């Protein structure tokens, strides 16, 4: 059982999971159904929590456990439930119609991953152990893809989801680059995320009420 504690092993796991997170992100780009969209987000957040836990275990950084737990609570449980409630409440069942069609979006996502690696490449320091540049690359890719998804979505709700998944990229960066921020910071950030999610949820709801639709591409009154 000793080799379980081997750092190499940990790195493998983390990298694997990071890859999984990336895949999920791309899957989100390709996704047509809002419900699935939410679920995938939940899954992705779960993976992140796991990564956090692993890192906490292997680097003996207890405060990351808290971060992991918070992620689990906020992003895997609270936010998805909140949004699914919202969906039911507003009986949304349209499917997502993106601006760019799915195959091309996926290709773009791939390209963005490449960008992520190119940017992170300059951080690669061979002498340095740990999860450094891989994780950073993945984080940047997640960030960019999430961003792209935001641009590519018409529905308010899905834009919020995209924004949250984009923040997942940040979380990954936080834990894997710096083994988590000081606890207080983590707390602050997560709190913000939670509030943001709620605020945006309310906004989405009101938009839905006022416009009889969640299609944000209709919000084009204010120009010039």
């Amino acid at each position, binding site marked *: 059982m000793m080799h379980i504690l081997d750092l190499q092993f940990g790195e493998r796991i983390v990298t694997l999971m990071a890859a999984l997170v990336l895949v999920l992100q791309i899957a989100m780009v390709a996704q047509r159904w809002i419900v699935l969209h939410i679920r995938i987000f939940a899954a992705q957040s779960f993976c992140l929590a796991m990564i956090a836990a692993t890192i906490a275990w292997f680097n003996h950084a207890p405060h990351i456990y808290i971060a992991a737990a918070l992620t689990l609570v906020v992003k895997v449980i609270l936010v998805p439930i909140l949004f699914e409630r919202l969906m039911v409440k507003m009986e949304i069942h349209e499917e997502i119609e993106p*601006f760019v069609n799915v195959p091309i979006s996926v290709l773009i996502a791939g390209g963005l991953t490449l*960008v992520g690696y190119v940017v992170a490449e300059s951080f690669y320091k061979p002498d340095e152990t740990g999860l450094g540049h891989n994780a950073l690359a993945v984080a940047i890719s997640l960030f960019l893809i999430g*961003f792209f998804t935001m*641009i590519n979505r*018409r529905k308010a709700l899905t834009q919020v989801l995209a924004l949250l998944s984009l923040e997942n990229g940040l979380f990954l960066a936080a834990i894997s680059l710096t083994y988590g921020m000081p606890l207080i910071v983590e707390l602050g950030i997560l709190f913000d995320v939670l509030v943001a999610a709620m605020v945006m949820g309310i906004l989405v709801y009101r938009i839905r009420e006022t416009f009889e639709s969640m299609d*944000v591409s209709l*919000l084009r009154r204010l120009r010039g």
Partner: protein
Amino acid sequence: MAVLFISGIVVWLAGAVASLALWRLPVIARRVACSAALAGSLLDLAASAASLFSASPTFIGIPSGNPVFTWAIRLDPLSAYFNVTLAVLAAAVSLYSFGYLKEMEGRRNLGAFGFFFNLLLMSLALVFTASNAFFFLVAWEVMALTAFCLISFEHEKEKTRSSGLLFLIMSHAGTGLLLIAFLTLTKTTGNLDFASFHLLASRMTPLEQGAVFLLFLFGFGVKAGVVPLHIWLPEAHPVSPSNVSALMSGIVIKSGIYGMARVFFDFYGTPALWMGAVVLGLGVISALVGVLYALMDHDLKRLLAWHSIENIGIILIGFGAALMFRALGQANLAALALIAALYHTFNHAMFKGLLFLGAGSAVQATGTRNMELMGGLIRRMPITALCFLAGAVAISGLPPLNGFVSEWLTYQALLAGFGTTQSLTRLMFPIAGSMLALTAALAAACFVKAFAIPFLALPRSPEAAEAREVSLVMRFAMIALAVVCVALGLGATGFIPAFDPITQQALGVRASSALVVAHGWAMSPGTSHGGTISTTGMALFFLLAGAAFALPLVLRWRRRIARGPAWDCGLPALTADNEYTATAFSKPLRMIFSALYRPRREIQAEYEVSPYYPSSIRFASEIEHTFEKRLYNPLRDRIMAVANRMRGIQAGSINTYLAYIFITLILLLLFGVRL
């Protein structure tokens, strides 16, 4: 001196604040404002006249509560000279305003007017004396701002608003150029003090020199109304109240001239030849364009505004010549040209102020600015007419008044210029000279129109027939300026020595001893033998001849004089309808210069009985204002079109907005990081 000057400033400031505070009591506000303006002017006059002859410039530094903001004032001869100009004109105008503003009581906020009026005078005095780039720009902009407020004082009229705005925008654009120019100088010296800019140009690269020169030329040119930066001037001067117009044309546009004098003869050591040539060329063009458009304009005040452009052109001819002489190392000739320019500056301030005051009286009496509706005012308002005539003779450069003197000096400078160089550039001097001659002659033609049509013959409208002579104080103000014009003409040789300190400071020579000959009876160009004039002599001749011949003969013939209807080639019943109009008067020139004017005319005749006897004919004729039509309007339209297209950036779609950020981010990540 310092004390006097500062107290002048303080009086103006106090007057401004007081009249604003008293705005609810128009009578008192008017009196306070005008008397403060008058007192301030007199104090300023005393201070600047004293320091014009003092050997060393007076420095005044007032500590201010804001370390960034420093009051740095220096009264050197040049500043003093322009301050004298300001003070004399301002005194007359404030006197005039006592009566002029009376009409506005109750209808307009005289408190506000007095506020801006006094502030304008104060800022002008500060512009002429600021000795620090920052403070200069502050005074400069305050001047523009207060001038704007006065121009758009009657802002109910659409025309007034647009004109004021045009002025504000153009002058601010000019200030932008000045800002760049001054900062380039500052970059070289590392501080903002004018003293440190003295003879600075030599320490700059030729490229910088040229660039800064042009920046200054155009920056100040906007305010001076140099063609093609003049379009605001004929708009803004007519719409403002007439006392303001007098200040605008008389002294505000001279702030640009002051700036040029300061830069060209204080900051620049020896300029390049082309600089002088450029200024000379601009001067000639401005003079011609100004007078040609004036001839076609029948709005009395706009006509005068166009003439301001012409006279600025004449001044610039002097400056240009002076610069070229300096480049050629001819200090004495440079002094001659500089004196010509500065003398004309002063003269123009006086007679243009006088003419605007006269025009203001006529406009107030008839309620219109269109001279075609005036006529016959010389009988209703004799004093105004006499003063206007004096101004007209002076501005037409006819002997023995002041306009003649400064134009004569300019001719002499140009004449002497021909011999100073062997290069072809020397051809510029005689050409400029002949163009100046053309300008002067056209100006005379224009002022025959500008005096005869409104003041002579029969009234052309009921209002004109009912016109009243203006109040005593207004008449007095005009007479005062007229007297100054005459004095500047007859006593020219007495004023020349006043330029010595200036030429001494700018060029290091004292010219008066060479210019004033025959025990102060005559003036010579100081360049070669002979070629003198003596306005005093001419005046004496006229007086003697008048007294000796005219008077007795008139008395003898008095009994033989009969008054009767005009013969008019036997046509019956001369009425205002068959008088010669201004339009008709300018017709020959309109046809001769049609290439420039591109006149359009339409005639509608209605016939009743036969095709030979029209019952009514309507004639409309208009000319094209080339610079607006061909230069400014297309530019404006282009810019607006581009702006409208760019509004598409903000099309309302959030996805697009996000895309902007996304693309920027990716670009920065890929390339920005490597910057």
